[in-house]
């Protein structure tokens, strides 16, 4: 057994060569040139072997593997997270404390590079989610990391809403304490999409605007939609079809439309009221097929009619 490990040790560098020659590099904003890429090549750090190479570099969370769709995709998420904070991430400030950290990785991360790419990445968030940004932006300080610190979601919400509650209790505001979701740090709203059995949750406080909400919806359901539509092996075409579905979520002209249910139980089109008003009254979101909308309108119209009859009647009686 031991022998195996020793021979394995010799073979290690091969396995760690994460720079496959045949793969196509993703186009990267602020991409690294050849020399820098060489520097990022990873090797196994042996004990005592690489002490002299260490730099007080900012060693951030993990994956420094190069070139993979995975990491760039994930990073897009990261950069979007910075802005939109999708899912249940709470926005956090910087890391804080001292960084001088010795590493035996032969991997150099440049602070300037990072911030440069971060800026460029931010500038790109308005584009589609599929755009490529450096994986490093995810790793840089200030980006919230999923699942860290390891606290369960309900503890995060409860803890921060407790503070609000104890303040509001003094004001005698009883209703607030029941709505756990109404705490500032994360307003999680359930969202379902027609034809997709799995529901998701979106953090409205992290979105901040309708446009970002639309991106968030696309991000949440794109893959589920693709999985549903998976009939061909042609990834690209499937990509396009799926993405098309999410165009024009808000103005009713696309394949799907975003609606919501407010605190009175009414179904409304998303986008009509100012964002803050929307956030305070929304209870649930739904992505409907636009073809179903007309039936929604009919229902709404009938409800309005009913209401006007009732009030109209009262008026007459007076």
């Amino acid at each position, binding site marked *: 057994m031991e022998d*195996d*490990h020793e021979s394995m040790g010799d073979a*290690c560098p091969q*396995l*760690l060569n*994460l720079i496959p020659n045949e*793969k196509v590099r993703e186009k990267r904003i602020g991409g690294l040139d050849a020399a820098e890429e060489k520097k990022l090549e*990873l090797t*196994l*750090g*042996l004990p005592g072997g690489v002490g002299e190479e260490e730099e007080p570099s900012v*060693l*951030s*969370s*993990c*994956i420094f*593997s190069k070139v*993979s*769709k*995975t*990491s760039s*995709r*994930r990073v897009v998420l990261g950069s979007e997270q910075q802005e939109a904070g999708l899912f249940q991430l*709470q926005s*956090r*400030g*910087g*890391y*804080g*404390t*001292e960084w001088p*950290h*010795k*590493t*035996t*990785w032969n991997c150099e991360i440049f602070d300037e590079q990072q911030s440069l790419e971060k800026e460029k990445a931010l500038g790109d968030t308005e584009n589609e989610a599929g755009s490529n940004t450096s994986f490093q932006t995810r790793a840089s300080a200030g980006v919230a990391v*999923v*699942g*860290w*610190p*390891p*606290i*369960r*979601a309900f*503890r*995060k919400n409860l*803890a*921060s809403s*407790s*503070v609000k*509650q*104890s303040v509001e*209790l003094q004001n005698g505001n*009883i209703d607030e*304490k*029941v709505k756990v979701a109404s705490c500032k740090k994360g307003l999680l709203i359930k969202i379902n999409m027609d034809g997709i*059995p799995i529901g998701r949750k979106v953090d409205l406080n992290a979105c901040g605007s309708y446009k970002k909400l639309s991106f968030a919806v696309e991000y949440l359901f794109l*893959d589920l939609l*693709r*999985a549903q539509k998976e009939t061909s092996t042609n990834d690209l075409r499937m990509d396009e079809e799926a993405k098309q579905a999410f165009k024009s979520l808000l103005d009713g002209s696309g394949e799907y439309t975003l609606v919501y249910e407010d605190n009175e139980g009414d179904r409304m089109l998303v986008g009509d009221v100012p964002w803050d008003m929307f956030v305070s009254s929304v209870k649930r979101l739904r992505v409907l097929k636009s073809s179903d909308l007309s039936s929604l309108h009919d229902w709404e119209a009938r409800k309005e009619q009913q209401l006007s009859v009732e009030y109209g009647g009262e008026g007459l009686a007076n």
Partner: protein
Amino acid sequence: MAEGGDGEGEEEEERSCALGFGTGGDDGAGCSGSPAPAARMRSGSCGGKEQPPPFSEQVLENVLESVLEFLTCRRDRNAASLVCRSWYRAEAQTRREVFIGNCYAVSPGRTVARFRSARAMVLKGRPRFDDFNLVPPGWGARFSPWATAMTAAYPWFERVCLKRITVSDADLALLARSFPSFRDLTLICCDGFGTTGLAAVAELCRNLRVLDLIESDVEEEDEDEDEQVVDWISRFPETITCLESLSFECVNCPVNFAALEALVARSPSLRRLRVNEHVSVSQLRRLMERAPQLTHLGIGSFDSGSADAGAGDLDVTDMESSFAASKSLVCLSGFRVLDPTYLPAIFPACANLVSLNLSYAVFTAEQLKPVIVQCHNLQTFWVLDTIGDDGLRSVATNCKKLSELRVFPMDASEDSEGFVSDSGLVAISEGCPNLRSILYFCQRMTNAAVVTMSKNCPDLAVFRLCIMGRRRPDRLTSQPMDEGFGAIVMNCKKLTRLAISGLLTDRVFEYIANHGRSVRTLSVAFSGDSDLSLKHLFQGCPNLKKLEIRDSPFGDAGLLFGVCHFYNMRFLWMSSCMPSLRGCKEVARRLPHLVVEVIGDSPQDLHGDAVDKLYLYRSLAGPREDAPPFVKIL
């Protein structure tokens, strides 16, 4: 499963998978450590067809069964089943409680075929990192196939405990319909069900004793929104019930209080009641009056704002009298909504309290002190860090019997102020020498404090320290935290569970490997420098069963060091590390009975060579068929 011993009707390939798969240990499907016992058994078994045992042997087996009935500990049972074929059979016939640590390690059919007399099952599903959103939703661990197999095979089934499993309303209804003797249902961190399922259980299980929903995600509405929340509390039988424990803290929607009160009134055996936050303090008072025999109480709202109409203002002395009347209370929890000025109401109960969970409530050390000075018998204490080091000092001074402490952060972010630090930890260690288990979230820590704790609390079995700033070094010396954790593994010989954090190099893993002989569960995050760490771990820790790693620089080389050990483990989780697809395939190739799952957030992520999330576990069932598109099984 001791395959070598079970010759009847098993295929050749299954018999050969006995390597490393004894029935010792409590993980996977109760599989043990070394290959040796299984190999011995294999050579001992004749292969070929099984003759029915001669008469004297039959008598012996019956005697054996009667004796083995008394074995309750599953590790003892696993060991007994390895002795020889007749012991294996006898043990299988008499095992009443089956523990499945990983629901994908063995198929339901196989479990049911082996343990024909089982009455209780504990089943665990998703890996723990699912709690922190690291496992994409829809990954798996569904109860349905198990429910189907169990209902078909066990007419007299009594108890089910599920953890991190997706249970549907239909599953619950099936259980309720199929098991007339069903008595205990415990769902921990589960999801997929709603009030409809609960109603079915309440209505159809006439012998229900325990219904505990702990930290589960209970759906409020169905997918098709026309379904209302079901009033499941009203569905309990109208007669006197055998209910002993009812916990529904995690159910987010209000329950019908009148029905709840009536239920409590007609449940004379009720000892444990944990309500959700929608139960107001005056309602709680009425419940306590109905059930003065309660030993465990989970409080919903505990503030003045929740007065009922007509009840008038409830003040602290009123509540205090309620607590004085409940003389059997030993455990208080909940406090989902707390007005700290109400805390003194629990004074009468403090002296008897063995367990107190205040971890959902925000209050200061000053507010805690009057309570804690009376809690001399406290053994378990969960609290938020807002009590600060000062509050911890009060705990240390007064709770000499403290055995388990959990300090949760009120603000779980890396740059928050942090109320507790190394001095709180030292205070606890000095005051509570009997400490066995600690979970401590903080922003600042020193090696010296951790070393002190290791020396003052030698009985520690669980040490989980979470320094919330990633890779943060010792606050005073700016050194890595290696020495602190090293001291823990060196001095705490009974340590079975360890979670490390802060700035850590390969050295800490060397310490763990050399000294952590009993460590079974290890959680690693943002730690280590190189694959040497994994080399240490896999070559060193003989009892390592569960290893979860995130965001650490370990790659294929480290992974391959584990090839000698993976069959002894329940699982390995690695996320945001550096393994490649090639490395994982190599592992899968070498270990045919290991299921190696590469998980991405979406199917696209699986196309590259980099592996974002790796989850591997030994399994007798082979690759699972219910894997979603974002999971690739190698």
